[in-house]
């Protein structure tokens, strides 16, 4: 059985904990959790430059962008975590200590130190659950078998805020499980999972539903790959879409304003599919 590595962007990353726990319950717990520590100067500078100071302030005040909502009725991620008994377990480090899994922090996921740690494991399967854009050094160390659950349909919706962009650009809200290569969400796919848009959904609720679908898909594919039953990757025909970036406030307002109509559009697309 090949060892499994999980990367994470934060210690308090509930989706990362859920993937680790899902793998453990299937009998294939991760062998290593690698956290790209958010408080390195390089990382903070990169986050401020790309997403603004507010992201860092939100994280430090406990309002991290990936924190699930409080109400399980309107928060699919909270509902999932409650259902799997993980509602009170949001720290990867604590989870790793509890289950005796090695958990290491690095300042930069693409550093020599991170590459050394991963390459020492030998041929492995890596599940990407955060930590910044992976560069060649890390991919080489990880043997180019790194999976990502992307919250949008590829190749149409590449990049950041994929769930939001899927809605606004009227592409089916979905999760694509794919290999990471050196491009931005350009690696071959393993599976595309449709995500249901429900009347009354907020953008946050839809995004969380994508996260839940991504957790499930990531656990299944990592487990299958580790046990020698990896799915065959395929490349979907058609040109790659223009890369998506963090939504500007004006576009986010537009999305919120049009959300009910966009959800209806999603439901029609799902019926036609």
């Amino acid at each position, binding site marked *: 059985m090949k060892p499994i590595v999980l990367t994470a962007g934060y210690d308090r990353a509930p989706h990362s904990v859920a993937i680790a726990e899902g793998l453990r319950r299937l009998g294939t717990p991760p062998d290593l959790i690698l956290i790209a520590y958010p408080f390195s100067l390089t990382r903070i500078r990169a986050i401020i430059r790309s997403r603004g100071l507010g992201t860092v302030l939100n994280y430090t005040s406990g309002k991290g962008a990936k924190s699930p909502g409080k109400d399980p009725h309107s928060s699919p991620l909270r509902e999932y975590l409650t259902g799997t008994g993980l509602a009170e377990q949001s720290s990867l480090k604590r989870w790793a200590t509890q289950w005796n899994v090695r958990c290491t922090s690095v300042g930069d996921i693409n550093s020599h130190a991170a590459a050394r740690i991963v390459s020492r494991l030998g041929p492995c399967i890596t599940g990407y659950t955060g930590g910044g854009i992976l560069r060649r050094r890390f991919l080489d160390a990880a043997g180019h078998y790194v999976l990502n659950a992307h919250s949008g349909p590829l190749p149409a919706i590449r990049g950041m805020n994929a769930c939001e962009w899927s809605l606004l650009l009227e592409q089916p809200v979905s999760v694509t499980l794919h290999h990471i290569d050196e491009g931005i969400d350009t690696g071959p796919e393993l599976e595309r999972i449709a995500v249901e848009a429900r009347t009354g959904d907020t953008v946050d609720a839809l995004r969380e539903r994508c996260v839940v679908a991504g957790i499930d898909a990531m656990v299944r594919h990592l487990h299958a790959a580790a046990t020698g039953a990896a799915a065959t990757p395929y490349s979907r025909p058609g040109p790659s879409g223009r890369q998506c*970036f963090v939504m500007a406030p004006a576009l986010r*307002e537009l999305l919120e304003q049009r959300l009910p109509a966009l959800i209806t559009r999603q439901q029609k697309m799902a019926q036609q599919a």
Partner: protein
Amino acid sequence: MPETLPSIARYNAHLRITADWLLQSIQHGKGGSSAHYSHLRGWSAPYPETTGYIIPTLIDASAPLDDPSLHTSAITLGEWLLDLQDAAGWWPGGLLKPGSARQPSVFNTAQILDGMTALARNTGEARWRDAAARGASWLARNLGADGCWQIGNYREGVNPSYYAQVAWPMLQVWQLSGDDLVHEAAIRVLDRIIARRVSNGVIAGWGFDEDRPAPTHTIAYTLRGLIESALLLDRWDTYGEPCMAALEKLSRKSQIADGRLPGAYREDWSAVSWYSCLTGNVQTALCLLRVEQRERDLRLVNSAARLVDHVCSHQQTGSRPAATRGAVAGSSPPWGRYMFMRYPNWAAKYHADALMMLAARLQGEADR
């Protein structure tokens, strides 16, 4: 028109103070628009070139701001420029300082054509169309077979690639006058410039000086001139598509930096990042919005919005000092290399243009 998105109201508020600052530059412009303000030296002499292309901005802003004084100012500026036009058709280069000799300028003449054609379209009056036709004819008559001018260049003998922004106003005049000589000359200019495109998407010589990094201001001039000419001539594959690699690169670079572009680029795309050229930021936003009108992709609007937001965040909105309320600095920080410690009128002009185009696009999408 009701503003359905808070950001549209925000953009309109920025447009108001930007237009007010342009009006201040006109009050201090001795007939034209003062080129720039500095805390050390106050208001500069008027600048015929930028006075010319501020005219369409004032005309366009008059309706959304419901302010007829902007339209009146546009006409006043146009009349000042009519008085400055040489009998041969050209307008002078540089700032109009008392006692200084007036020399013909290719680039400045073309930017004034932008104002003249805007007034001609807006008022239907022959005086603007005739002045524009004379100016464009002077440009066409003096252009060599190689697509270069030997006189009237900013640097003697140098025909930079941002002369794409000369070809575009010439084509606007051709639309009004039907003068084929002007059309053919503009095509010669465009063909010479597009032939300078290299494999990394850069159009060589798009800066002020071929040996120095090009500010995003002149990069965006080059791209805008080519894009607008492509749209006007319906020749996208020839002049528009070759710009896309550079424009996509600028879009990506700005979005991973929260809407901020470096001040200048070398021709291998290595950046001079310690300052940002704010007018280049909004000019790039305008290029993206124009391309988006052709291919409808909200991701381009997003990129433009972030570029504009970055400039809004550096615009002084408080009431004091009054001379810089609504102004846009040349650089951020203001001691950056582009227009060191000055607030140029063209930065305000392009900011206003970008605010209007962005707000209109968002309103259209919100009304859908």
